[in-house]
């Protein structure tokens, strides 16, 4: 790990896509940061991905067009890729590689940190258990988000994932006045999407609490690999050294994975499923595992990554590998969206694995689990009844199935759908109870007598 001083070489020996081949370089380190200077073009940056005493391979992070190896002056900097971090970054808009986009001078920051970070020692982690109110019933009630969690949104082309993320960000800024920040990594998203998202941000007053890393659709794909790591390096510093609660929104991870595939192809690697590299799981893990809370440190990193399921296919490697790493997923449904339900969250395939630690007595309400289980059970039954009704007609259903069918419709409209905007947790719970109360008590098999009695008493007491 003893990195050497900068060394410059005149002329590289070959190029293929974003890869540059250099022969005879001295004491090259894996991951070493490289600058490539070609007269008449802007400087490019790159990273050593294969260090050898004969041939060294550099992955160039900027536009490969015009990369002329013979004319390139290649400098091995003796350093690994690092990012400027610091509280000063809050309120700034930077490119995916950390250059200013807001017309201000480049940030000086408080420190430089390696963008790859280091894995948290699992024994130093604190088990996440602190409820975050998002204002979204399908999340707060049924798929609770907690601080330190990584909970992605699985979207489809044209589904309002960014709107959902923006509304969560708006809400997440409020609670208990603790210091917080938002780090947004826009990975290969269009200028239009970026603008829409930022508008919501600005309106909510969240912009002055945010650091933006924007790798736009028009930027070189390879920069997409760096962008989330820049963002997370900044986030870790804000969380673990400045004590802020940081919410990291990353969109769209699908573009990230496609960039990964492009590089793998350029390197002529053996492809895994659907052409994505075999190490994509490990690679994504080095991004998603950078969420969490550390013992004895006040801040936290919570991740809300967004990805697009190609062809709405949840078994596609991108959502599949993500789901295997993250602590659940919020899945958007096209059918709900078509019927005008916002947010169109399909709760059946959605899941928050850390929900259980974040709900219950002393956290939300004691009966939260049974209440959620009951809504789930009835809704699952309702969806099944809907399928059946499509064939045999509603009249062919038994009484219980008919009730479940009606419940399903109402649940989607009145509980999942939030035409009036955000709900507090008590409002969410109440919306669920109202739907449950349409059933005979005997049908509510998940609800204990104690929870039922408490609800009835509370209702009687309410004005």
């Amino acid at each position: 790990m003893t990195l050497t001083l900068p060394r410059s070489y005149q002329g590289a020996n070959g190029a293929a896509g974003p890869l540059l081949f250099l022969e005879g370089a001295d004491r090259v380190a894996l991951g070493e940061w490289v600058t490539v200077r070609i007269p008449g073009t802007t400087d490019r940056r790159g990273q050593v991905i294969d260090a050898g005493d004969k041939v060294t391979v550099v992955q160039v992070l900027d536009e490969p067009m015009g990369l002329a190896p013979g004319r390139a002056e290649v400098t091995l900097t003796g350093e690994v890729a690092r990012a400027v971090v610091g509280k000063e970054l809050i309120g700034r808009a930077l490119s995916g590689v950390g250059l200013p986009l807001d017309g201000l001078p480049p940030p000086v920051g408080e420190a430089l940190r390696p963008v790859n970070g280091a894995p948290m020692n699992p024994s130093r982690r604190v088990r996440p258990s602190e409820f975050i109110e998002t204002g979204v019933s399908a999340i707060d009630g049924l798929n609770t988000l907690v601080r330190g969690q990584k909970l992605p949104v699985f979207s489809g082309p044209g589904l309002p994932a960014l709107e959902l993320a923006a509304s969560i960000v708006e809400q997440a800024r409020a609670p208990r006045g603790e210091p917080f920040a938002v780090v947004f990594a826009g990975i290969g998203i269009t200028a239009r999407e970026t603008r829409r998202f930022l508008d919501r941000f600005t309106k909510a007053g969240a912009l002055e609490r945010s650091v933006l890393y924007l790798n736009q659709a028009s930027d070189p794909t390879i920069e997409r690999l760096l962008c989330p790591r820049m963002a997370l390096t900044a986030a870790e510093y804000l969380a673990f050294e400045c004590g802020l609660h940081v919410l990291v929104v990353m969109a769209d991870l699908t573009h990230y994975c496609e960039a990964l595939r492009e590089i793998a192809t350029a390197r002529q690697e053996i492809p895994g499923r659907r052409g994505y590299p075999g190490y994509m799981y490990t690679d994504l893990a080095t991004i998603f595992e950078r969420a969490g809370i550390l013992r004895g440190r006040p801040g936290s990193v919570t991740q809300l990554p967004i990805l697009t399921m190609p062809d709405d296919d949840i078994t596609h490697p991108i959502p599949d590998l993500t789901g295997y790493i993250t602590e659940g997923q919020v899945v958007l449904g096209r059918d709900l969206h078509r019927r005008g339900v916002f947010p169109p969250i399909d709760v059946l395939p959605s899941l928050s694995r850390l929900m259980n630690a974040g709900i219950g007595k002393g956290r939300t309400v004691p009966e939260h689990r049974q209440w959620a289980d009951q809504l789930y059970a009835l809704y699952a039954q309702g969806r099944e009844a809907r399928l059946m009704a499509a064939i045999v007609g509603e009249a062919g259903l038994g009484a219980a199935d008919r009730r479940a069918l009606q419940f399903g419709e109402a649940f989607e409209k009145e509980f999942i759908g939030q035409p009036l905007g955000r709900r507090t947790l008590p409002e969410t719970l109440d919306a669920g109870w109202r739907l449950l109360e349409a059933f005979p008590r005997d049908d509510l098999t998940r609800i204990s007598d104690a929870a039922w009695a408490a609800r009835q008493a509370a209702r009687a007491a309410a004005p």
Partner: protein
Amino acid sequence: MTAPALIRRVTGTLVEAAPLPGVGLYELAAVGSGGLLGEVIRLAGDRATLQVYEETNGLEVGEPVSPSGRALEIELGPGLLGSVLDGLGRPLAALAAHSGDFLTAGANVPTLDPARWWTFGPALAAGATVAPGDVLGTVEERPGFAHRILVPPGVRGTLAHITGGRYTVHETIAELADGTRFTLAQRWPVRRPRPVAARLPDDRPFLTGQRILDFLFPVAEGGTVAVPGGFGTGKTVIEQSLAKWADADLIVYIGCGERGNEMAEVLSEFPELTDPRTGRSLMDRTIMVVNTSNMPVAAREASVYLGVTLAEYYRDQGYRVALMADSLSRWAEALREISARLSDMPGEEGYPTYLASRLGSFYERAGRVQCAGTPERTGALTLITAISPPGGDFSEPVTQACLRVAGAVWALDPALAHQRQFPAVDWEVSYSEYLQGTLPWFEQEAGTGWTDARRRLLELLQRGRELKEIAALIGPDALQDEDRLVLEVARLIRELVLGQSAYSATDASSPAGKTLALARLVLALHDAARAAIAAGKALERLDLAHQRRHIAAVRDAGPEAWPQAAETAHAELARLGKEAV
């Protein structure tokens, strides 16, 4: 004098170094000036390829490499229980003391605390002849847990002296006439199975406390189980539930390429939970091996061997050990990553062609055995392995390779998980080859009628499934009352017998007696309701909801309360019968 070996190439987790004329395959070496741990996996001329178990970023061409002459080993001895190790056997707590909250490469910390004192009580005296596996004496590793100090494999002779007293793990506790010294600790290369005297038949069940598993797909002590399932189907919850409640003396839990927060969950929960068998903290019977998905990938590959070696070591002492590995797919992927970098000729989906044979020999390390040495004792190593098929597709190579060798398969189904039917074990796809061998035990210990109840229950489930398909075509209302009753009973079986919440304070673990009682109650409900329908009563007029509530009360009753609740529920059933007459 030969030239010192230097790094010639670094790519991913692999390092090429030369000249290394004398090294052997699987020999360890210190790589780079930071002394990272590497293992020789390929040799060509005097050039060696090493897989490095730690982060290789920053490693430079030209840094030194020095071979160690040893293979990848683990130090075995008192102090392992309750510890949390990384894939190389380094305690995470020691790593934190060494390098803080984040892991860095090159930390050299021992598995066993070299400064800790233990009290050794000899079981033999000077003059005794000893052979491999003989118990030299014991150390009380945790309150009430006797750690047996064994003569290491391959060592025999006459004891020149042996003395009880307080020792650290590296001090001499005994010596053979030929000068061989014994300490509390011994080393073992993790890739090699530890020897046993004989393998025993698999006829004792490994009680999991999960109704659907014990009742439908039991595993024998010393058996092997594959638990394949897509993401979020409940593999980790099953592994953790078994680690908590299964009937074993000791648990080795390997978090292989999975989540850091899941490890934090175990570490915060287990010390707080009480082992119902001993009344002590659950952590006292647990060893964790943790290599999360973002930790170096080569160490992930090593971690399963480390874990199984730890398990074998306690098995050799005569304990019943269960190994939970979550997930073997991540291990296989590590293998694939390494082999791809070696430019091996890939097999199916890029996995190396030796995947199946490596998996096979790993599973072979399980078993119920006659331990080597005296006094005579048996031990068991039961293996429960999670598998994460891409896209939930079981036809992929890793799942297929595991299915070929595992003795039982608990297949998890995303559709069940989406309906929150947990454990989401698909009873149509799952199977156990241990069923016939273990049924006699259940019949005798859990209560007669186990086999019969199991058969009837499965028949009802099967019939319920068929009827459901018919109902989907013609509508449930068009079915006869008797058939609609079967649909209803099948639903109750899923809800009250097979369904079991891992988060329930009282029902997270179910003793075999309670499992049988619940099955019998639902079957009796079916009999009574069928009799009533036969006597002319309409299904709608039967108060099944009332009966359901009483059976649910049995399910939700804790270990002391369920027998009473079962009696009440049975008494209530008699009412349903009588009403009908």
